[in-house]
């Protein structure tokens, strides 16, 4: 990998506990016991790709709850998508869901999530760590990659189009939980009609317990056990499955779930609503309603269509002089300067 040495690098000066490199994962290994993994909020990768004009398959930094401090040794456009995290470049606040130029040496600080849970830091050239099984996604439970730590440096691809127009996008709202669409799975019949009904009538909230493998749901009242006990044959799992552990306590499985499991599953969250689950911070209210299989199937959207829809939603940023905090720093009239040129040189 000689090319590596030529790539610019991103240095991590500080890192929250939930930073990993992610992309769209490595599908196709379910029979071998490896779940596809990848970004928990896939939509955020498509939003970043639409903003930057890049491929949604490029690797990004996923930040669970809290960001970090970074500097790059080459200019690059970046975007922050997913959870809204407090962020600034050299002290100047930057907004999420917009492209920004991160100049070489500037310090990018990303703090805690103000809304949502999983934030994504995307680079125009993508994070370029080594691929394992055709993906750069860290899969912690499978021992692929590891959490990012302060002091590390990651290669990233040079920005292919640094002068591209700055863009912004209004992201699909997904931080407040609410009504979640689910579909029946192979084990829905293992539950009584009453349990299925009561599941859809219960007001849940996202428990503090959760990670890339799944989240627990809190609720008042009785659990949702399968009819006929716990001895069911382990069977195949897909992300989004809602499994009843122990005495019927629901967990929603996410990108890094196991591939087979013996807990009964009442149904699956449809992929279009999984970003709402991913971004539900602890305490967020969630309620579930069954779609018919035909209705659920009709929500399928190809990656290409999703990207083109999001690309159309992007708007170029026209700078309003009122938005420019440091107006005098811009040389609007030849000869007028901030007056501190000598100090800054």
């Amino acid at each position: 990998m000689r090319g590596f040495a030529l790539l610019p690098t991103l240095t991590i000066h500080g890192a929250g506990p939930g930073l990993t490199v992610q992309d769209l994962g490595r599908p196709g290994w379910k029979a071998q016991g490896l779940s596809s993994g990848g970004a928990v909020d896939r939509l955020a990768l498509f939003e970043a790709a639409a903003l930057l004009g890049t491929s949604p398959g490029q690797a990004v930094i996923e930040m669970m709850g809290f960001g970090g401090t970074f500097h790059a040794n080459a200019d690059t456009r970046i975007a922050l998508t997913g959870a809204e995290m407090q962020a600034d470049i050299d002290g100047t606040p930057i907004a999420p869901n917009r492209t920004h130029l991160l100049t070489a040496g500037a310090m990018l600080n990303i703090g805690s999530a103000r809304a949502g849970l999983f934030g994504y830091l995307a680079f125009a050239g993508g994070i370029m760590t080594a691929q394992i099984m055709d993906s750069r996604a860290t899969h912690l439970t499978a021992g692929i990659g590891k959490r990012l730590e302060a002091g590390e440096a990651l290669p990233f691809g040079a920005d292919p189009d640094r002068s591209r127009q700055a863009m912004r996008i209004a992201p699909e709202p997904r931080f407040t939980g609410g009504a979640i669409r689910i579909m029946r799975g192979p084990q829905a019949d293992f539950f009584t009609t009453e349990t299925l009904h009561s599941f859809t009538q219960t007001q849940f909230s996202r428990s503090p317990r959760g990670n890339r493998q799944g989240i627990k749901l809190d609720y008042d009242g009785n659990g949702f056990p399968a009819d006929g006990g716990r001895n069911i044959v382990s069977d195949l799992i897909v992300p989004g499955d809602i499994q009843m552990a122990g005495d019927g306590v629901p967990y929603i499985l996410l990108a890094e779930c196991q591939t087979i499991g013996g807990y009964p599953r009442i149904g699956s969250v449809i992929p279009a609503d999984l970003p709402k689950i991913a971004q539900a911070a602890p305490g967020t209210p969630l309620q579930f309603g069954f779609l018919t299989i035909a209705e659920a199937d009709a929500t399928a959207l190809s990656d290409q269509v999703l990207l083109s829809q999001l690309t159309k939603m992007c708007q170029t940023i026209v700078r309003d002089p009122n938005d420019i905090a440091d107006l005098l720093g811009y040389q609007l009239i030849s000869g007028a300067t901030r007056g501190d040129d000598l100090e800054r040189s």
Partner: protein
Amino acid sequence: MTTEPELLPLGIDGILVRFARILTEDANAKALRFRDQVQSAGLPGVTEVASSLTSVRIGFDPTETDRQTVTEAIHPLINNVDASESDAKRLWRIPACFSPNHAPQLGEAAALAGVSPDQAVAQITRQTTRVIAIGFAPGQPYLGMLPDHWDIPRQSQLTESLPRGALITAVRQLIIWAADAPTGWRHIGQTAFRVYRPETSTPFAFEPGDAVQFEAVSAADFAAIQADPDGGARCEVLRCCQR
């Protein structure tokens, strides 16, 4: 007990074909055979065909095909699944050490199965097992089925951790342990075999349906094979892939 296979949705991009709601050798053989057949059929829009103990999930790209088209294509295959034809494609011979320090629970497991430790080792090494499913941890095989008297329960006290390659048993099955997690299965032997090698071009040693035979080796021989990247295992191709 024979039951009709069930066709069920599993996600907006998948169909699960379940051959039984309880684990039987027949249902597992059918699942493995059916997976082979669907893979060989090369159906348009089918992205992934995965099997578990008694079922197969056919994953498809909903933008290229749809549930009904895939269902119609697999229907004739389901009715023609012949469990008796599921000969293994490959046979693995894997050395295992059953000396006391490598097999701390062999005596206990043998007693539960109603045999002596020596008989237990003889039975486990005489039989050719099959990879009936892979899971819990990447590449980790569930091997079965042992004779009925090996239907021993999991222990209620979990073993906190086991060395990689540990041979463990419960409910007529064996596992070559690859997970970093507690387990209720009993540790009855030790292999030097890595079932999962993410950094290599063949990250997973096993495919569902592979045949596996264990060969007892002495503690001295076991020490020697630990340096071998394959832990002394040999793989023989029995028949070629159909595709």
